[in-house]
């Protein structure tokens, strides 16, 4: 069984240095940000950025930046991305100040309008230049909002994809699927906000929570890697007797998940399971087994689990994946081509193929089959390719030595964040490490015999169909 020993709280402390900023750009972004704030988010700074003073004033975010004082005079951008762009340009100084010091920046924006479409890509770019890792959460407009808005949104989305490390894209149309036809339009938008809020929180938790098997940012990017894509995101939480099953069912029910049907086409799925200290191995196993039914054999499963005292009785399952919509219209290396070109940053392109190559070569099945001694070793090992610090590294390195060799970025550990990991990582070993990272936990082949196909009886977190002596580890014979 997994047990959380006292020492495990240590990594958490370290991570507190990892400054996270969540930025809402434009009206929709502000709404999403408000939702995140209201739902409660610790260790992150919330910044609302808008052209519209009124909307800015009503936001509950901790800090606010008004852009386009001259261009829009405190009004909105009027649905014109050009205006939004210029507004952001004008306030570049203030924006840089607001973004300073962030290691990780989440940019939430509703695309299709003026401020969101125009300013968000610029802000993402600035954040990136500042050395932060940028994840953009973009909502695409409803189809009924008109073709023009959709076109603007798509353009902005491409721009965002170019400048961010990952883009999580929410299609409002799909979001509307779960809202009752009779429900007010407010509710439809609220669902979008809630989903964004959940996913930001989930991603923050994925990266921050001290994990027994931790998921690093690299895995996150691997999961979201196919660009120009539809993001599959699911989050479920439950505290019932059958919480493992229920949390997963809820996660699969998410509007962006389509009941897990779309998971079958995904290349890589990131799964993060977290729960209170009472979470059992069996429960984790139940989730993984059920999830395996929803994905193809070749799909790479990036698996992480963490124990958090704050979760109490609850257990949550987060699924993140992406699906190339039109046969991967945008191949990965195109991502940060032109805009970032003046800055010496070409190696950014590099991680992509690296991550792509690895997953495909090792099917997840074999990984699980390989036994590993203890989850404990994992924790120290898995965090190794911590890219969170990498951009920072690069920024430091870039001005001095131009264009570090592409491979370097991948190889470089994150000394600032996980200094204790460094010795483990002989560069030569690197490839091996990446492969080994996932094999972390070997599940004992627990069988339920006669009850294999029946509904499991789960009481107090234990699957009662599994023989008692097996669960209690009593040796017979």
């Amino acid at each position, binding site marked *: 069984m997994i047990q959380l020993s006292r020492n495990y709280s240590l990594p958490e402390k370290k991570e507190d240095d990892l400054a996270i900023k969540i930025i809402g750009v434009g009206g929709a972004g502000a709404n999403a940000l408000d939702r995140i704030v209201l739902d409660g988010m610790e260790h992150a700074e919330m910044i609302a950025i808008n052209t519209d003073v009124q909307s800015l004033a009503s936001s509950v975010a901790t800090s606010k930046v008004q852009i386009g004082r001259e261009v829009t005079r405190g009004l909105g951008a009027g649905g014109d991305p050009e205006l939004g762009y210029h507004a952001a340009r004008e306030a570049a100084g203030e924006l840089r100040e607001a973004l300073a010091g962030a290691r990780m920046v989440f940019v939430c924006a509703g695309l299709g309008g003026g401020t969101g479409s125009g300013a968000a890509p610029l802000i993402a770019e600035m954040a990136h230049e500042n050395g932060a890792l940028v994840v953009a959460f973009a909502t695409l407009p409803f189809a009924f909002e008109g073709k023009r808005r959709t076109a603007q949104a798509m353009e902005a989305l491409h721009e965002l994809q170019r400048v961010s490390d990952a883009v999580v894209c929410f299609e409002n149309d799909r979001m509307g699927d779960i809202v009752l036809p009779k429900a007010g339009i407010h509710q439809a938008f609220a669902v979008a906000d809630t989903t964004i809020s959940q996913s930001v929180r989930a991603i923050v938790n994925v990266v921050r929570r001290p994990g027994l098997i931790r998921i690093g940012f690299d895995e996150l990017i691997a999961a979201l890697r196919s660009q120009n894509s539809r993001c599959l995101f699911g989050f479920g939480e439950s505290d019932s007797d059958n919480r493992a099953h229920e949390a997963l069912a809820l996660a699969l029910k998410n509007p962006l998940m389509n009941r897990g049907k779309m998971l079958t086409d995904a290349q890589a799925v990131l799964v993060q399971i977290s729960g209170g200290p009472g979470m059992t191995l069996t429960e984790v196993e139940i989730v993984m087994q059920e999830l395996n039914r929803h994905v193809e054999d070749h799909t790479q499963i990036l698996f992480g689990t963490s124990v958090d005292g704050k979760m109490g009785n609850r257990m949550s399952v987060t699924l993140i994946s992406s699906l190339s919509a039109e046969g991967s219209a945008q191949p990965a290396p195109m991502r940060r081509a032109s805009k970032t070109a003046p800055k010496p940053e070409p190696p950014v392109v590099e991680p992509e193929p690296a991550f792509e190559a690895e997953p495909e070569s090792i099917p997840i099945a074999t990984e699980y089959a390989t036994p590993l001694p203890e989850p404990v070793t994992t924790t120290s090992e898995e965090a190794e390719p911590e890219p969170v610090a990498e951009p920072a590294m690069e920024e430091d390195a870039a001005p001095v030595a131009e264009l570090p060799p592409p491979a370097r970025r991948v190889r470089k550990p994150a000394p600032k964040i996980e200094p204790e990991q460094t010795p483990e990582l002989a560069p030569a070993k690197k490839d091996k490490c990446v492969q080994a990272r996932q094999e972390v936990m070997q599940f004992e082949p627990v*069988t*339920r*015999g*006669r*009850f294999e196909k*029946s*509904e499991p*009886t789960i*009481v*107090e977190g234990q699957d*009662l*169909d599994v*023989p*008692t*002596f*097996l669960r*209690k580890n*009593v040796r*017979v*014979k």
Partner: protein
Amino acid sequence: MASSNLMVGLEIGTSKICVVVGEGKPDGTIKILGVGQAPSRGVRKGEIVDFETAMKCVHEAVVDAEEKSDIMIRSVYIGITGAHIQSFNNRGCVTLPEERDEIDEQDVDDVKINAREVSIPAQNAFLHSIIQSYHIDGHDGVLSPVGMLGQRLEADFHIIHGVRNRIQNTIRCVKELPLDVEDVVFTAFASAQVVLTQHQKNLGALVIDIGGGTTDYILYVDGAVRQSGVLAVGGDHITNDISMGLRIPMTRAEKLKIEEGSTVLGNCLPGETVLLKDDSGFAGKEVERETLNTIIHMRLRETFELLKRRLEDEPYLDYLGEGIFITGGCSQLNGIDNLAEEVFGVPARSSHARTMSGLTSAFENPQFSAAIGLIKYAQAMQGDRQPRGGIRGLMGKFFQRMR
């Protein structure tokens, strides 16, 4: 059925289906006329998973019972179990109109309806609302309020409910045969009717019915049901554990459990073995007796511990004056009463149906407790109904009008 005091109880168990035909005597006792049974297939953990197969098995059992009792079965009382069954206690309340202060039957019905007006999940249906006690104007401990004076009638009910579709499945399985379903009864409630006497119910007792697929329990204190429920673990699990632990087939594990199994640990000689005979009679595998017992012991201990934790949600476990009565097929396991006594810290014994006449072999077998209990329940129900329609009912109404 020829006469109305012939009653049939049908229990669709996980390991066997039994049909008991009984005759209610005017003095309240029951005579067992015949017992039909058939091995059960298509049932897991007390619930039907293979409709067609289960139906065939029920048919077999019913035919068997008809042959044995020489009676044509038309309608039955069925026992229901399964992990979906839940229960809780609730209080209903009605206030009488200003101008009236005598409580009549209508008020009692109203208070019952009132008590049911609690939210159970949408897909669930009520199985039983069992009265615990009435309170009139805050004065408690009233047993029969009709005719008493008061303004405010309250009643505590123990409400048992389950998922409607799953209950319907069992009913449909019987109706397809075709047989009429008179009523549906929670099996532990049925078992308790014959395992416990009224006196024992008053003193406080816990009935644990460990069947093939489920463990059903019901707790009485002060003559009223206080807690009840189902744990979807039963004899099947023990057999499965043995089969997996000793790596032998299920059928042989089942046989080994019945013939050699015991829950008592440390009672055998070191290295004592049981010889598993091959089908052909040749010596097969040797199994260490202590290993076998350990497997059984661990499972049952865990089951009892889970039960205890569930029961400890409410304080009634301390009021068991009569202790624990274990019935159902699994109660035949050697030493199970000692184990229960050890876990619960209350006297426990294996028990079977009492106060019967007729086929001794039937009612002394704990496997039939629930099915016989169904008959007892049926008798109580019919007893309830008759006076209302019969002479006493008329007389009662007459007297009411006079007053």
